[in-house]
């Protein structure tokens, strides 16, 4: 198992070699954008247009922080010209991919943890700027909902990662012509999921999608629903992972 964790660790290494994104001028633009976003959020909080629940809407979108990079995970072996080392390793292709999956997942968990910190900071800011709306009671409810959303998102992330890997593996294989079909599948999955989360969970009692109202359904996601969603998500991920492993093993040449 020694080699497995070395391969997992190498996923992080591969991420490091992202020249463009770590350039200092790029960092300045990102910092500026973040300040702008945070500034407008604080403004809205102060004027009461945004309550605690509304902030939670970004949680499901965290899966895109896993989806995008996952496509690059496999592709980077090709673009970095290390594919001849990677594909000749004496381990099953499924192990090679699983190591990348685990590496990506661990990386994503750190981002998710970071997002929790950001939420906590905004909770504090909210209490400071607008104690009328941001009461401890409201924050308590929001926290409970946040936990449920995070759990659902964590369960959905393997699906996003395996989908990204499938896209990348297909792109570098003989089945490349199938790529448009897979992309359509991915887009359909993503839009259905977002559709479900945003529309069915973030609507007011009249059935309209409207900020800052939040559906009662969101505060009471029942355990059975959560379990079925998690199991379904993992099951789908396993199937997609199997497909990606098959393609890497049988349909890929380097």
């Amino acid at each position, binding site marked *: 198992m020694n080699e497995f964790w070395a391969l997992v660790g190498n996923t992080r*290494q591969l991420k490091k070699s992202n020249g463009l994104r770590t350039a200092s001028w790029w960092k300045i633009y990102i910092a500026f954008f973040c300040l702008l976003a945070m500034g407008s959020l604080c403004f809205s909080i102060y004027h009461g247009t945004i309550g605690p629940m509304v902030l939670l809407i970004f949680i499901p979108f965290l899966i895109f922080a896993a989806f995008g990079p996952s496509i690059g995970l496999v592709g980077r072996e090709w673009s970095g010209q290390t594919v*001849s080392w990677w594909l000749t390793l004496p381990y099953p292709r499924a192990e090679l991919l699983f190591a990348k999956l685990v590496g990506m997942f661990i990386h994503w968990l750190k981002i998710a943890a970071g997002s929790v910190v950001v939420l906590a900071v905004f909770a504090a800011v909210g209490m400071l700027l607008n104690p009328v709306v941001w009461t401890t009671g409201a924050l308590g409810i929001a926290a409970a909902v946040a936990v449920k959303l995070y759990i659902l998102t964590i369960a959905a992330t393997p699906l996003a990662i395996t989908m990204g890997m499938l896209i990348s593996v297909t792109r570098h294989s003989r089945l490349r012509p199938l790529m448009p079909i897979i992309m359509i599948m991915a887009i359909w999955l993503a839009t259905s999921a977002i559709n479900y989360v945003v529309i069915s969970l973030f609507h007011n009692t009249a059935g309209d999608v409207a900020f800052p109202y939040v559906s009662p359904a969101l505060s009471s996601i029942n355990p059975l629903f959560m379990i079925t969603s998690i199991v379904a998500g993992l099951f789908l991920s396993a199937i997609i992972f199997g497909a990606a492993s098959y393609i890497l093993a049988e349909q890929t*040449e380097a």
Partner: protein
Amino acid sequence: MMAINLENVTKAYGSQRALDSLTLGLFEGQVTGILGPNGAGKSTLFKAIVGLVRPDAGRITVLDSRPSWKTNGQIAYLSDQCRWYGSHTVQHSIDYAAAVFPHFDQKRAEQLLASMGLNRDVTVGTLSKGHEARLKLIICLARDVRLMLLDEPFSGIDLVSREKIIQGLIESFAERKQTIIISTHEIREAESLFDQVVFIDQGQVVLSGEVEALRQEKGSLESIYRGLFQ
């Protein structure tokens, strides 16, 4: 004893045949040079042996098995167009290689680092082409495996690095009887390393044999090459 056997192996890319019904046996425990012009099929030959490409026809036997990732546990393959992971330091490269490659002799790798003059704390991405080539070769040489495939290990490398690489190869071969297959364009520099030689053109074997016997019959490998491909 044949380490590698190819029987009527064909591999085509579109209408172009990289390997054209190629039949070849490569001796165990010997250094074999694969020589031929660009596009002759040398790289495709190597890739077929390690299973990176699958032939359209024919049969390949490597170390008494079919080419696959399982067999690659005993094969050290250096591709002609590969880089090492640029974000690694030299030291981490060795640690990583020791973890993922079976039969990796870490002590030997450290010795080779010293004799090849590589600084451990340097990031691989900042190494010159010659130094990166030395590192890639060290990673292959430090593996205690039965078969080593080097696809153009000298290509585009400075003189001193080439000499270091040759030194490392001789050392390795003297120490353990490995099968080493090398393809190169630096014929004059490398020909004194070969026990056997195979000349390939357009996916087929044009000439092969024991190097010293060929020298007796026809002269230097360089002159034979000129005679065949000019």
